[in-house]
C-alpha cells in the first residue's frame, strides 16, 4: 500500500518535471528543439543584436532601426495566432527562417532546420509567459477568391472606410496623416508600410500571409487586427486592392519612361 502510494507520487513528480522540461522545448512539425543547444547557437549568432538577456539590447542594437526584438515581452509581429496571444513555435521558426524584411534581421536558412528549432526553444526561455500561458489557436485562412475588378473596387472602399489610409496614406505610400505619430510598443518611431515600394512585407510576401497579417495584426506595432472588423471575403478584397498599389506605381513609372523617350 505504502509502496504503491510512493510509486504514484514519484510518477507525479516525474510527470511534473517532464512537463517543465517540455516547456523548454519547441515543437515544429516533427522537429523538437532543445533550449540548451539553442543557447549555444544564440550566443554565436543572435546575441550581438538581441543581447545576452534577450531584451533586444545587444551591442549592435544602438545602430539598428527598427530595434531588435525584446524577447522578454513575448510580443511578436509575425504570428498565426490572434492579437494578444502567444505565437506558435512554428511562427517563431518561420520568422527565423524568413528573416524580417526592411530590418536588420536576416534569413537564417543557412542554419540547419534542427538548429533553428533549437533557437526557438531558447528564445522562449526569455519570458515566463511561455510557461504560464498557452499559445493562441492558429487562425484559419479560407481559400482566396479570384482578384476580380469588383473585388479590387470593394477593397479600395474598405481601405477608405477602415481608415487604413490614416497611416498608409490615400495613395498607399505610408504618409497618412497619423503616420508621423506612430511608435512601436517600446516607444520607438515606426513607419507604416509603403505599399507602392513592393510587396516585401515583414511577415511574408504571399497573399495568404497578407491575409493573415490583416487577421492577426502585428502585435507590438500600431498595425491592428481586423478579426472582428471585417468578414474574411472582405479581407481578401483588401489584399487584392493593396496588390494594385504597387502595380499602379510601376505603370506610372513605365508611362513616364515612355514619355521621356
Amino acid at each position, binding site marked *: 500500500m*505504502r509502496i504503491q*502510494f*510512493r510509486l504514484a*507520487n*514519484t510518477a*507525479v*513528480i516525474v510527470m*511534473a*518535471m517532464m*512537463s*517543465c522540461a517540455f*516547456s523548454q522545448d519547441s515543437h515544429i512539425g516533427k522537429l523538437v528543439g532543445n533550449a540548451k543547444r539553442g543557447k549555444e547557437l544564440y550566443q554565436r549568432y543572435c546575441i550581438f543584436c538581441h543581447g545576452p538577456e534577450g531584451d533586444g539590447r545587444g551591442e549592435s542594437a544602438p545602430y539598428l532601426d527598427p530595434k531588435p526584438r525584446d524577447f522578454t515581452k513575448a*510580443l511578436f509581429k509575425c504570428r498565426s495566432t490572434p*492579437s*494578444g*496571444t502567444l505565437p506558435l513555435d512554428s511562427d517563431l521558426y518561420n520568422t527565423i527562417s524568413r528573416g524580417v524584411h526592411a530590418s536588420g534581421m536576416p534569413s537564417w536558412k543557412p542554419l540547419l532546420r534542427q538548429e533553428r528549432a533549437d533557437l526557438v526553444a531558447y528564445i522562449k526561455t526569455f519570458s515566463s*509567459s511561455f*510557461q*504560464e*500561458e498557452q499559445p493562441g489557436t492558429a487562425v484559419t485562412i479560407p481559400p482566396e477568391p479570384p482578384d476580380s475588378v469588383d473585388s479590387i473596387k470593394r477593397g479600395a472602399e474598405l481601405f477608405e*472606410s*477602415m*481608415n487604413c489610409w*490614416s*497611416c498608409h496614406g490615400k495613395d498607399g505610400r505610408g504618409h497618412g*496623416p*497619423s503616420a508621423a*505619430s*506612430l511608435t512601436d*510598443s517600446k516607444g520607438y518611431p515606426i513607419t507604416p508600410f509603403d505599399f507602392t515600394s513592393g510587396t516585401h512585407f515583414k511577415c511574408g510576401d504571399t497573399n495568404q500571409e497578407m491575409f493573415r497579417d490583416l487577421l492577426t*495584426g502585428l*502585435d*507590438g*506595432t*500600431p*498595425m*491592428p*487586427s*481586423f*478579426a*472582428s*472588423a*471585417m468578414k474574411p471575403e472582405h479581407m481578401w478584397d483588401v489584399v487584392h486592392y493593396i496588390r494594385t498599389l504597387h502595380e499602379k506605381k510601376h505603370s506610372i513609372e513605365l508611362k513616364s519612361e515612355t514619355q521621356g523617350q
Partner: protein
Amino acid sequence: MRLKSGIIPILTLAAISLCGYLSIGWAKPPDATGSLKGTVRFEGTAPKPTRIDMSQDPICAKAHSTPPTTEDVVVGSGGALANVVVYVSEGVPAGSYEPPQQPAVLEQRGCQYKPHVLALQASQKLSIVNSDETTHNIHPSPNNNREWNMTQPHGIPLEQTFARAEVAIPVKCNVHPWMHGYIAVFKHPFFGVSDKGGNFEIKNLPPGNYTISAWQEKLGTQTQKVTVGTGESKTLDFSFKQ
C-alpha cells in the same frame, strides 16, 4: 520512512505549482459593510486644457459643437479633480474576488474615450463600444498584461479582458493620435474613480487597516493610511498639485 512519504507529496505539489499548473483556492472574504468616501481636489490654478485638432477625420471634427479639449487634467468647479483612480493598495483581505458579471463599458464617442479613465477587475469583461461613424483601433500598451490591438468599425461589438492587476494601462487609437485613455485593473473590488465633482466611493470594505492610493495620469500617485471599523463610513480627501 515516515518522513520521506511526507516529503514526497510536498515535493510533488512544489513541482506542479512551479510549472504554474495548479492554482490554490482561497477562502472568500467575510461580509463587509464599511465604506470610504471622499473628494479629490486640484490645488492652485488649473492647467488650461489644450484644444484638439480633429480635422484629419471630418467625422470626428463634426461630432463636436464646441472645440474638443485634452482630458489629462480635468478640473471642475471648486478644484474638483476628475478621473483619479482611488484604490486599496495595501491591506486587501486575502481571498479570491470573483469579477462582477456586469461588463465594464468603454465607449469611443466623438473620437474620445468615455470614460477617459476606467477601472475594472481582472478577468471582468470589458465591453468596447464604437459610437462614432468612423473606424477606430483600440490599442492598450500594458506592462503586466498581454498587449492586443483591434480594429473596430462603427457598431461592431468587441469584448476583451485583462488577466492581471495593473495601474494603469494606457490605451490609444493609432488612427486618431489624439485619443488617449487609461484602464486600471484590480484583483479586488476595492476601487473607485473620481467623478466630475471629484467624488469617489469604495464600498463593502471589511474592517481593517488600509493604505489607500490615488493615481492621476499626469500628477502621480498619493497614499494615505486609514483604519475602517465594522460597518464604518470613513471620509478621506486627496489633494493634488502640479
